[in-house]
């Protein structure tokens, strides 16, 4: 073996430095914890948490364990992220397309939106919506109904709840519809390749998606009713709404600001993606006789998506990470519930901060692995 000293020395120094730093930290941590009488361990996760959380997707109260509190926080984070991602994507695509509009007013309006919202810190926007804008909403007893069923008040948004019977049958019917659509798509592709005939797959799928769940209402015994929130007086001046689902103002402020902020970045991604497809592509596609719809579906979109999706996934990741700002307005997300309340109660700084970071890290890395896989799949195969 012909080891060169020049190759080994830098690596050795770096590794030694890293080991030294980590060793130094662990050594100090051990001494500090001994001095303060804290023991290291994750056993506290199964202990009773004895604190309450205002808003939770799963059943939770003080008698549940810290691990359950962690799950509550994680689910709340995921809830905000998913709602935010959906709204931001819709808004971002619309604004991104609008920025390419030949209409001067629409173009400038979209540009104004992008420049305005992305140059203001997200935290400031969250504070603005939560402390200034949503505080100006009416009290529950003064609220006017929107479409007769929604109530937007200072205590949050009240929406009707769905009450399902035989929900599982309904879900099965949707799965069945999805399976049928996949089979039809495969069949249609075969038919087109063999005989050149085109089957209107889109309309058939739309019909299936509508008809099969509808059938489940008539045959499967599924029924759906709504529970409209009703105003109830607690004391002389204190009112709340009962029934229905209530969305706390923290959630509204957070999703609103997250999606308005992230939509500006997604809009820029979409714009860059569509601009990135050469004009020649469109003209070439038209010249071989494709209809405008086909040009969009078969030529423009696949190429634009290749440019759009990687940065957009990054924005989704950013949104998920930014949702941790929820701690600033007391929305019970992972950071507030776990790295805030649970840390205060247990004092297990190292364990809790590391679990929180590890959770976000897992989330990010799994998404970026997925993205890399997707990127490889759609990348142009060049020889």
């Amino acid at each position, binding site marked *: 073996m012909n080891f060169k000293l020049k190759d080994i020395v830098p690596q050795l120094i770096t590794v030694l430095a890293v080991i030294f730093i980590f060793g130094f930290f662990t050594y100090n941590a051990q001494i500090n914890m001994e001095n303060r009488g804290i023991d290291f361990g994750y056993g506290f996760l199964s202990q009773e948490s004895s604190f309450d959380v205002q808003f939770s997707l799963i059943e939770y109260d003080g008698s549940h364990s810290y691990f359950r509190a962690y799950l509550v926080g994680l689910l709340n984070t995921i809830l905000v992220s998913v709602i935010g991602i959906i709204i931001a994507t819709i808004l971002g695509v619309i604004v991104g397309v609008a920025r390419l*509009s030949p209409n001067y*007013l629409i173009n400038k309006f979209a540009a104004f939106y992008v*420049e305005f919202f992305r*140059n203001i*810190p*997200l*935290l400031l926007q969250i504070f603005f919506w939560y*402390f200034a804008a949503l505080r100006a909403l009416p009290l529950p007893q003064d609220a006017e109904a929107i479409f007769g069923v929604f109530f937007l008040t200072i205590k949050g948004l009240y929406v009707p709840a769905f009450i399902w019977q035989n929900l599982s049958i309904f879900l099965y019917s949707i799965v069945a519809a999805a399976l049928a659509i996949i089979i039809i798509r495969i069949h249609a592709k075969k038919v087109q390749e063999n005989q050149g005939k085109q089957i209107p797959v889109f309309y058939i799928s739309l019909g299936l998606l509508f008809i099969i769940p509808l059938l489940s209402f008539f045959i499967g015994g599924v029924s759906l009713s709504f529970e409209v929130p009703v105003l109830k007086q607690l004391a002389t001046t204190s009112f709340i709404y009962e029934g229905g689902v209530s969305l706390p103002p923290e959630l509204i402020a957070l999703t609103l600001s997250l999606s308005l902020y992230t939509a500006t970045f997604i809009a820029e991604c979409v714009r860059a993606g569509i601009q990135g497809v050469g004009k020649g592509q469109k003209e070439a596609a038209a010249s071989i006789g494709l209809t405008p719809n086909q040009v969009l579906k078969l030529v423009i979109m696949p190429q634009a998506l290749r440019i759009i999706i990687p940065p957009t996934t990054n924005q989704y990741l950013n949104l998920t990470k930014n949702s941790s700002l929820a701690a600033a307005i007391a929305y019970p997300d992972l950071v507030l519930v776990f790295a805030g309340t649970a840390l205060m109660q247990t004092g297990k700084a190292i364990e809790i*901060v590391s679990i929180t970071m590890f959770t*976000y890290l897992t989330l990010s890395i799994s998404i970026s692995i997925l993205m890399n896989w997707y990127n490889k799949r759609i990348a142009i195969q060049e020889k």
Partner: protein
Amino acid sequence: MSKKNFLKPDKSNLYTYLYLGSFLFFISILDVFLNSFFKLNLTGFLPNFLSFLLPLILGFIGLHFIRIEYSGINKLDLLNKHINTNNFNAILSLLIIFVIIKSLPPLLSWFVIDASFAGDSKDVCSGSGACWTYIKVWIRRFMYGMYPNAEQWRINLSFVALMLLGSVGYFATDRFKKYLTLYYVVIYPLIAFLFIFFFISGGPVFFDFSYGIIAAILSIIIGFFVPSKLKFYYFLIVPLALYIILKYFLFFDEYIELGKLDGLNWVETGAWGGLSLTFIISFFCLIFCFPIGMAFALGRRSGFPLIRYISIGFIEFWRGVPLITVLFMSAVMFPMFLPADFFIDKLVRCIIAISLFEAAYVAEVIRGGLQALPRGQYEAAKSLGMGYWRMHIFVILPQALKLVIPGIANTFLALVKDTPLIFVVGLLEIVGMLNLAKTNPKWLGFAMEGYVFAAIIFWIICYAMSKYSYNLEQKYKTDR
């Protein structure tokens, strides 16, 4: 005169359509205008629903009439091309015009007409508009945090001096141009560091460090003039040795006394705040995160597998976690990792945390630039017999950095926008001060004014920076 077909306006009856269309368009805008500015409802005699939609319908018909291709009238063609290409666009344009007209009066009255500017107590703010008096009274707190009023000239003086020193590059003559990089990368940050740590804080915060650090940095500068044969060993040994000697062997109380500037009161970092803290933090983080990021970008593309994996691990770790948890870590977890008698100031911990966090993003941006360079550049440099460092310093990095200017600017922009998060560790820059002022019992209920004020300031800073980076990008655009 040919027959008029109102569904399909054409050029033969140009003026009929033009007058009719412009009239309808004008009426629709006038209606909305009067409605929103003077509360006059011209169409009040109609049913509610129709009265609401009438301007839209009239404007739509008007725009339909004046949509005549190649009319020969320049302005009309421009109008058609820009806002009136088809029915759908016409409706959208009308909606936007109406929204602008509708939203102007309430905005104007809130911002200017009904707003109160005079006075210095809450009593003057009885109108429905904004209370700018609140901002006026609190402006010092928003700008300087809890920094004592009598000492604020120190912050002003430091910023002015640093700005002047920073603009030296514009006035440098050709003779000094070649030293500019050295100046901006090493000397200027050092001066800024001295200014902030000795002048703004006014005392020997970390004095035992600063001697060592200054000596180490000076020795690095001197190191550039050491013969190249010995350079490697010089850099390996001298700065660290100097630092250790100064810190552990030559450290006496008299030296602390030496460093104190006479007549300046010490202001602890907990009292710093407001917009000036935003600037201080962004400035230091930018200075620190750039070299760290560059090192890890080079590390990630290094040929040594161990260095590469360590770099990848570092970058992916910081990129995967939210800044707020990093700050949490610096606040509650980091003190556990240090020796018990070893105390690092809150602000410094915060700057370290943000710098490491941003360095990972900077590293990815720089890596993008390194990857974008054609292989030929590397090969050409190697064929001239350049080593790794020479190749990177003289050939690769100057080109790669030029490519990534917009990316770096965006990262820096994100950094500025992230500074409000330091409320997590209890430091209050402008947004934190707003939240504090909002809870003052004498000044309850002015949250909106405060947030709007901060939003305007941040918007101006960030927008100016993004425009500047765009200009730089245009200036340094290298054609390939």
